[in-house]
Protein backbone atom coordinates (compact mmCIF):
# COMPACT_ATOMS: atom_id res chain seq x y z
CA UNK A 1 0.00 0.00 0.00
CA UNK A 2 1.30 3.46 -0.89
CA UNK A 3 0.79 6.19 1.69
CA UNK A 4 1.61 9.85 1.25
CA UNK A 5 2.40 12.17 4.11
CA UNK A 6 1.24 15.49 2.70
CA UNK A 7 4.01 18.01 2.00
CA UNK A 8 6.57 15.31 2.84
CA UNK A 9 6.87 12.12 0.77
CA UNK A 10 5.30 8.89 -0.46
CA UNK A 11 5.98 5.60 1.32
CA UNK A 12 5.25 1.96 0.52
CA UNK A 13 3.91 -0.08 3.43
CA UNK A 14 2.96 -3.71 3.98
CA UNK A 15 -0.67 -4.72 4.59
CA UNK A 16 0.01 -5.38 8.30
CA UNK A 17 0.85 -1.75 8.68
CA UNK A 18 -2.30 -0.81 6.86
CA UNK A 19 -4.34 -2.39 9.61
CA UNK A 20 -2.46 -0.57 12.35
CA UNK A 21 -2.85 2.64 10.39
CA UNK A 22 -6.60 2.12 10.25
CA UNK A 23 -6.74 1.58 14.03
CA UNK A 24 -4.81 4.77 14.64
CA UNK A 25 -7.03 6.62 12.18
CA UNK A 26 -10.15 5.59 14.09
CA UNK A 27 -8.58 6.42 17.45
CA UNK A 28 -7.67 9.88 16.15
CA UNK A 29 -11.24 10.49 14.98
CA UNK A 30 -12.40 9.68 18.54
CA UNK A 31 -9.77 11.95 20.11
CA UNK A 32 -10.69 14.82 17.80
CA UNK A 33 -14.41 14.35 18.44
CA UNK A 34 -13.73 14.38 22.19
CA UNK A 35 -11.70 17.58 21.80
CA UNK A 36 -8.68 15.86 23.29
CA UNK A 37 -5.73 17.68 21.73
CA UNK A 38 -2.97 15.90 23.64
CA UNK A 39 -4.22 12.47 22.64
CA UNK A 40 -4.64 13.64 19.06
CA UNK A 41 -1.03 14.89 18.95
CA UNK A 42 0.30 11.68 20.43
CA UNK A 43 -1.65 9.45 18.05
CA UNK A 44 -0.96 11.56 14.98
CA UNK A 45 2.77 11.49 15.76
CA UNK A 46 2.53 7.71 16.13
CA UNK A 47 0.77 7.51 12.77
CA UNK A 48 3.47 9.57 11.06
CA UNK A 49 6.27 7.59 12.73
CA UNK A 50 4.71 4.32 11.65
CA UNK A 51 4.72 5.43 8.02
CA UNK A 52 8.15 7.06 8.13
CA UNK A 53 9.93 4.33 10.08
CA UNK A 54 8.32 1.19 8.68
CA UNK A 55 7.61 2.39 5.16
CA UNK A 56 10.00 2.56 2.24
CA UNK A 57 10.30 5.91 0.50
CA UNK A 58 9.03 5.76 -3.07
CA UNK A 59 11.49 6.76 -5.79
CA UNK A 60 11.04 10.34 -6.94
CA UNK A 61 10.27 9.30 -10.51
CA UNK A 62 7.68 6.69 -9.48
CA UNK A 63 4.36 7.80 -10.93
CA UNK A 64 2.08 5.56 -8.87
CA UNK A 65 -0.56 7.37 -6.86
CA UNK A 66 -1.21 6.94 -3.14
CA UNK A 67 -4.03 4.91 -1.65
CA UNK A 68 -3.97 6.94 1.53
CA UNK A 69 -3.00 10.58 1.90
CA UNK A 70 -2.18 11.69 5.42
CA UNK A 71 -2.46 15.38 6.32
CA UNK A 72 0.73 17.49 6.70
CA UNK A 73 2.78 16.85 9.86
CA UNK A 74 2.26 20.45 11.03
CA UNK A 75 -1.52 20.00 11.05
CA UNK A 76 -3.18 22.10 13.75
CA UNK A 77 -5.85 20.73 16.04
CA UNK A 78 -8.44 22.97 14.38
CA UNK A 79 -7.50 21.59 10.95
CA UNK A 80 -7.61 18.06 12.34
CA UNK A 81 -11.33 18.58 12.96
CA UNK A 82 -11.84 18.80 9.19
CA UNK A 83 -9.69 15.80 8.32
CA UNK A 84 -10.42 13.27 11.01
CA UNK A 85 -14.15 12.79 11.11
CA UNK A 86 -16.61 10.07 10.27
CA UNK A 87 -14.60 7.13 8.99
CA UNK A 88 -11.40 9.15 9.21
CA UNK A 89 -8.88 9.11 6.40
CA UNK A 90 -9.34 5.43 5.75
CA UNK A 91 -12.92 4.14 5.37
CA UNK A 92 -13.55 1.01 7.45
Amino acid sequence: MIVRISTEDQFELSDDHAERLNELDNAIVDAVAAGNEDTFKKLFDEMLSLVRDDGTVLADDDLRDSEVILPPPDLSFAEAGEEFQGDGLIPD
Partner: protein
Amino acid sequence: MAGISGRMSTVIKAKISKMLDRAEDPGETLEYSYQKQIELLQNVKKGIADVVTSKKRLQLQSQKLEQSVVKLDTQARQALSAGNEELARAALERKQLAQSELQGLDQQVKELEGQQASLTENEKRLRAKIEAFRTKKEVIKAQYSAAEAQVKISEAATGVGEEMADVGLAMQRAVDKTENMRARASAVEELEKAGTFEDLTQLGSGSDDIDRQLHELTSSGAVDDEMAKMRAELGSGGADKTPAIEAPAEATAETEESR
Protein backbone atom coordinates in the same frame (compact mmCIF):
# COMPACT_ATOMS: atom_id res chain seq x y z
CA MET B 1 -10.14 -0.53 3.48
CA ALA B 2 -10.62 0.54 -0.08
CA GLY B 3 -9.98 3.97 -1.45
CA ILE B 4 -9.54 7.07 0.60
CA SER B 5 -11.73 9.71 2.09
CA GLY B 6 -10.66 12.74 4.11
CA ARG B 7 -10.85 16.26 2.78
CA MET B 8 -7.21 16.32 1.67
CA SER B 9 -7.62 13.33 -0.63
CA THR B 10 -10.95 14.49 -1.99
CA VAL B 11 -9.53 17.87 -2.96
CA ILE B 12 -6.54 16.27 -4.64
CA LYS B 13 -8.61 13.76 -6.63
CA ALA B 14 -10.93 16.54 -7.77
CA LYS B 15 -8.00 18.60 -9.01
CA ILE B 16 -6.56 15.70 -10.97
CA SER B 17 -9.80 14.79 -12.70
CA LYS B 18 -10.35 18.45 -13.60
CA MET B 19 -6.95 18.48 -15.22
CA LEU B 20 -7.69 15.29 -17.20
CA ASP B 21 -11.09 16.46 -18.35
CA ARG B 22 -9.70 19.49 -20.11
CA ALA B 23 -8.98 17.85 -23.42
CA GLU B 24 -10.74 15.14 -25.42
CA ASP B 25 -7.80 14.03 -27.47
CA PRO B 26 -5.25 11.94 -25.53
CA GLY B 27 -2.34 13.71 -27.18
CA GLU B 28 -3.77 17.06 -26.16
CA THR B 29 -4.39 15.87 -22.62
CA LEU B 30 -0.77 14.82 -22.38
CA GLU B 31 0.56 18.13 -23.62
CA TYR B 32 -1.85 20.10 -21.48
CA SER B 33 -0.89 18.14 -18.36
CA TYR B 34 2.76 18.61 -19.14
CA GLN B 35 2.30 22.36 -19.60
CA LYS B 36 0.56 22.61 -16.24
CA GLN B 37 3.35 20.66 -14.60
CA ILE B 38 6.03 22.94 -15.98
CA GLU B 39 4.07 26.03 -14.92
CA LEU B 40 3.74 24.69 -11.41
CA LEU B 41 7.43 23.90 -11.27
CA GLN B 42 8.19 27.52 -12.12
CA ASN B 43 5.80 28.64 -9.38
CA VAL B 44 7.54 26.44 -6.86
CA LYS B 45 10.86 28.01 -7.79
CA LYS B 46 9.33 31.46 -7.31
CA GLY B 47 7.88 30.33 -3.99
CA ILE B 48 11.31 29.23 -2.79
CA ALA B 49 12.79 32.56 -3.88
CA ASP B 50 10.09 34.36 -1.87
CA VAL B 51 10.92 32.38 1.23
CA VAL B 52 14.61 33.22 0.80
CA THR B 53 13.77 36.92 0.41
CA SER B 54 11.66 36.91 3.56
CA LYS B 55 14.41 35.11 5.42
CA LYS B 56 17.02 37.65 4.36
CA ARG B 57 14.80 40.50 5.43
CA LEU B 58 14.33 38.98 8.87
CA GLN B 59 18.06 38.32 9.17
CA LEU B 60 18.78 41.94 8.38
CA GLN B 61 16.33 43.08 11.02
CA SER B 62 17.83 40.68 13.46
CA GLN B 63 21.30 42.13 12.87
CA LYS B 64 20.00 45.65 13.42
CA LEU B 65 18.34 44.63 16.65
CA GLU B 66 21.53 42.96 17.85
CA GLN B 67 23.34 46.24 17.34
CA SER B 68 20.58 48.06 19.22
CA VAL B 69 20.90 45.67 22.17
CA VAL B 70 24.63 46.37 22.43
CA LYS B 71 24.11 50.11 22.03
CA LEU B 72 21.33 50.33 24.60
CA ASP B 73 23.33 48.26 27.07
CA THR B 74 26.26 50.61 26.73
CA GLN B 75 24.00 53.59 27.17
CA ALA B 76 22.43 52.15 30.28
CA ARG B 77 25.90 51.69 31.77
CA GLN B 78 26.93 55.18 30.82
CA ALA B 79 23.78 56.65 32.31
CA LEU B 80 24.12 54.64 35.50
CA SER B 81 27.74 55.54 36.04
CA ALA B 82 26.78 59.18 35.50
CA GLY B 83 24.09 58.78 38.13
CA ASN B 84 21.16 59.16 35.72
CA GLU B 85 19.03 56.30 36.90
CA GLU B 86 15.96 57.26 34.95
CA LEU B 87 17.78 57.24 31.64
CA ALA B 88 19.45 53.95 32.51
CA ARG B 89 16.07 52.44 33.25
CA ALA B 90 14.65 53.68 29.96
CA ALA B 91 17.59 52.21 28.06
CA LEU B 92 17.22 48.87 29.81
CA GLU B 93 13.53 48.72 29.06
CA ARG B 94 14.25 49.25 25.40
CA LYS B 95 17.02 46.73 25.49
CA GLN B 96 14.67 44.17 26.96
CA LEU B 97 12.09 44.81 24.29
CA ALA B 98 14.74 44.54 21.58
CA GLN B 99 15.92 41.25 23.06
CA SER B 100 12.49 39.71 23.10
CA GLU B 101 11.88 40.82 19.51
CA LEU B 102 15.23 39.35 18.62
CA GLN B 103 14.27 35.99 20.05
CA GLY B 104 11.07 36.00 18.02
CA LEU B 105 12.93 36.89 14.85
CA ASP B 106 15.56 34.21 15.32
CA GLN B 107 12.83 31.63 15.81
CA GLN B 108 11.19 32.75 12.57
CA VAL B 109 14.43 32.68 10.63
CA LYS B 110 14.81 29.06 11.74
CA GLU B 111 11.28 28.26 10.65
CA LEU B 112 11.87 29.82 7.25
CA GLU B 113 15.06 27.84 6.85
CA GLY B 114 13.06 24.69 7.49
CA GLN B 115 10.47 25.74 4.93
CA GLN B 116 13.11 26.53 2.37
CA ALA B 117 14.63 23.09 2.84
CA SER B 118 11.34 21.23 2.54
CA LEU B 119 10.14 23.26 -0.46
CA THR B 120 13.46 22.54 -2.16
CA GLU B 121 12.84 18.83 -1.52
CA ASN B 122 9.31 19.17 -2.91
CA GLU B 123 10.63 20.88 -6.00
CA LYS B 124 13.20 18.17 -6.57
CA ARG B 125 10.57 15.46 -6.28
CA LEU B 126 8.14 17.21 -8.58
CA ARG B 127 10.89 17.75 -11.14
CA ALA B 128 11.73 14.03 -11.11
CA LYS B 129 8.07 13.08 -11.56
CA ILE B 130 7.61 15.56 -14.40
CA GLU B 131 10.66 14.14 -16.12
CA ALA B 132 9.26 10.61 -15.73
CA PHE B 133 5.95 11.85 -17.08
CA ARG B 134 7.65 13.45 -20.08
CA THR B 135 9.34 10.16 -20.96
CA LYS B 136 6.12 8.23 -20.52
CA LYS B 137 4.23 10.79 -22.59
CA GLU B 138 6.42 10.13 -25.62
CA VAL B 139 6.07 6.37 -25.19
CA ILE B 140 2.31 6.62 -24.93
CA LYS B 141 2.02 8.81 -28.00
CA ALA B 142 4.22 6.49 -30.05
CA GLN B 143 2.92 3.11 -28.98
CA TYR B 144 -0.72 3.17 -27.99
CA SER B 145 -4.03 3.52 -29.75
CA ALA B 146 -6.29 6.35 -28.61
CA ALA B 147 -8.39 4.13 -26.35
CA GLU B 148 -5.42 2.45 -24.71
CA ALA B 149 -3.61 5.74 -24.39
CA GLN B 150 -6.45 7.25 -22.37
CA VAL B 151 -5.95 4.68 -19.61
CA LYS B 152 -2.18 5.03 -19.58
CA ILE B 153 -2.41 8.80 -19.51
CA SER B 154 -4.82 8.64 -16.65
CA GLU B 155 -2.40 6.50 -14.65
CA ALA B 156 0.60 8.68 -15.30
CA ALA B 157 -1.24 11.95 -14.82
CA THR B 158 -2.78 10.82 -11.55
CA GLY B 159 0.64 10.12 -10.09
CA VAL B 160 2.15 13.38 -11.16
CA GLY B 161 -1.10 15.23 -10.40
CA GLU B 162 -0.99 14.01 -6.83
CA GLU B 163 2.54 15.37 -6.51
CA MET B 164 1.44 18.66 -8.02
CA ALA B 165 -1.45 18.99 -5.58
CA ASP B 166 0.90 18.18 -2.73
CA VAL B 167 3.47 20.77 -3.78
CA GLY B 168 0.62 23.26 -4.11
CA LEU B 169 -0.43 22.49 -0.55
CA ALA B 170 3.14 22.81 0.74
CA MET B 171 3.46 26.18 -0.99
CA GLN B 172 0.15 27.41 0.40
CA ARG B 173 1.18 26.51 3.92
CA ALA B 174 4.55 28.20 3.43
CA VAL B 175 2.86 31.35 2.13
CA ASP B 176 0.46 31.45 5.09
CA LYS B 177 3.30 31.15 7.54
CA THR B 178 5.43 33.71 5.75
CA GLU B 179 2.54 36.17 5.81
CA ASN B 180 2.22 35.80 9.56
CA MET B 181 5.92 36.48 9.85
CA ARG B 182 5.69 39.52 7.63
CA ALA B 183 3.12 40.98 9.99
CA ARG B 184 5.55 40.51 12.83
CA ALA B 185 8.47 41.94 10.87
CA SER B 186 6.34 44.99 10.11
CA ALA B 187 5.54 45.40 13.79
CA VAL B 188 9.26 45.45 14.59
CA GLU B 189 9.80 47.95 11.80
CA GLU B 190 7.10 50.17 13.29
CA LEU B 191 8.95 50.14 16.59
CA GLU B 192 12.16 51.01 14.79
CA LYS B 193 10.48 53.86 12.93
CA ALA B 194 9.07 55.19 16.18
CA GLY B 195 12.66 55.41 17.38
CA THR B 196 12.26 52.77 20.04
CA PHE B 197 15.77 51.43 19.57
CA GLU B 198 17.37 54.77 18.75
CA ASP B 199 20.01 56.71 20.58
CA LEU B 200 18.44 57.59 23.89
CA THR B 201 20.62 60.59 24.53
CA GLN B 202 18.88 62.30 21.62
CA LEU B 203 15.47 61.61 23.02
CA GLY B 204 16.05 62.95 26.48
CA SER B 205 15.37 60.96 29.60
CA GLY B 206 12.39 58.67 29.74
CA SER B 207 9.44 60.97 29.59
CA ASP B 208 8.08 60.63 26.06
CA ASP B 209 5.22 58.54 24.81
CA ILE B 210 7.40 55.62 23.77
CA ASP B 211 8.68 55.34 27.30
CA ARG B 212 5.25 55.25 28.80
CA GLN B 213 4.36 52.40 26.45
CA LEU B 214 7.60 50.65 27.21
CA HIS B 215 6.87 50.75 30.92
CA GLU B 216 3.74 48.80 30.17
CA LEU B 217 5.38 46.38 27.76
CA THR B 218 8.44 45.33 29.72
CA SER B 219 8.29 43.72 33.09
CA SER B 220 9.83 46.20 35.47
CA GLY B 221 11.00 43.35 37.71
CA ALA B 222 13.41 42.17 35.06
CA VAL B 223 14.60 45.72 34.47
CA ASP B 224 15.13 46.18 38.22
CA ASP B 225 17.17 42.99 38.33
CA GLU B 226 19.35 44.11 35.47
CA MET B 227 19.81 47.54 37.03
CA ALA B 228 20.93 45.96 40.28
CA LYS B 229 23.33 43.68 38.43
CA MET B 230 24.72 46.54 36.41
CA ARG B 231 25.10 48.65 39.54
CA ALA B 232 27.04 45.88 41.25
CA GLU B 233 29.27 45.50 38.20
CA LEU B 234 29.89 49.21 38.00
CA GLY B 235 30.55 49.38 41.71
CA SER B 236 33.29 46.82 41.44
CA GLY B 237 34.43 48.18 38.06
CA GLY B 238 38.05 48.81 37.32
CA ALA B 239 39.22 45.96 39.51
CA ASP B 240 40.41 42.71 38.01
CA LYS B 241 37.35 40.51 38.15
CA THR B 242 35.84 37.65 36.21
CA PRO B 243 35.48 38.09 32.42
CA ALA B 244 31.73 38.68 32.83
CA ILE B 245 32.46 41.90 34.65
CA GLU B 246 35.47 42.86 32.61
CA ALA B 247 33.56 43.69 29.46
CA PRO B 248 31.32 46.35 30.99
CA ALA B 249 34.27 47.80 32.87
CA GLU B 250 36.01 48.21 29.55
CA ALA B 251 32.94 49.74 27.99
CA THR B 252 32.81 52.29 30.78
CA ALA B 253 36.50 53.03 30.40
CA GLU B 254 36.06 53.60 26.69
CA THR B 255 33.18 55.95 27.36
CA GLU B 256 35.25 57.97 29.81
CA GLU B 257 38.01 58.27 27.25
CA SER B 258 35.72 59.34 24.46
CA ARG B 259 34.31 62.16 26.52
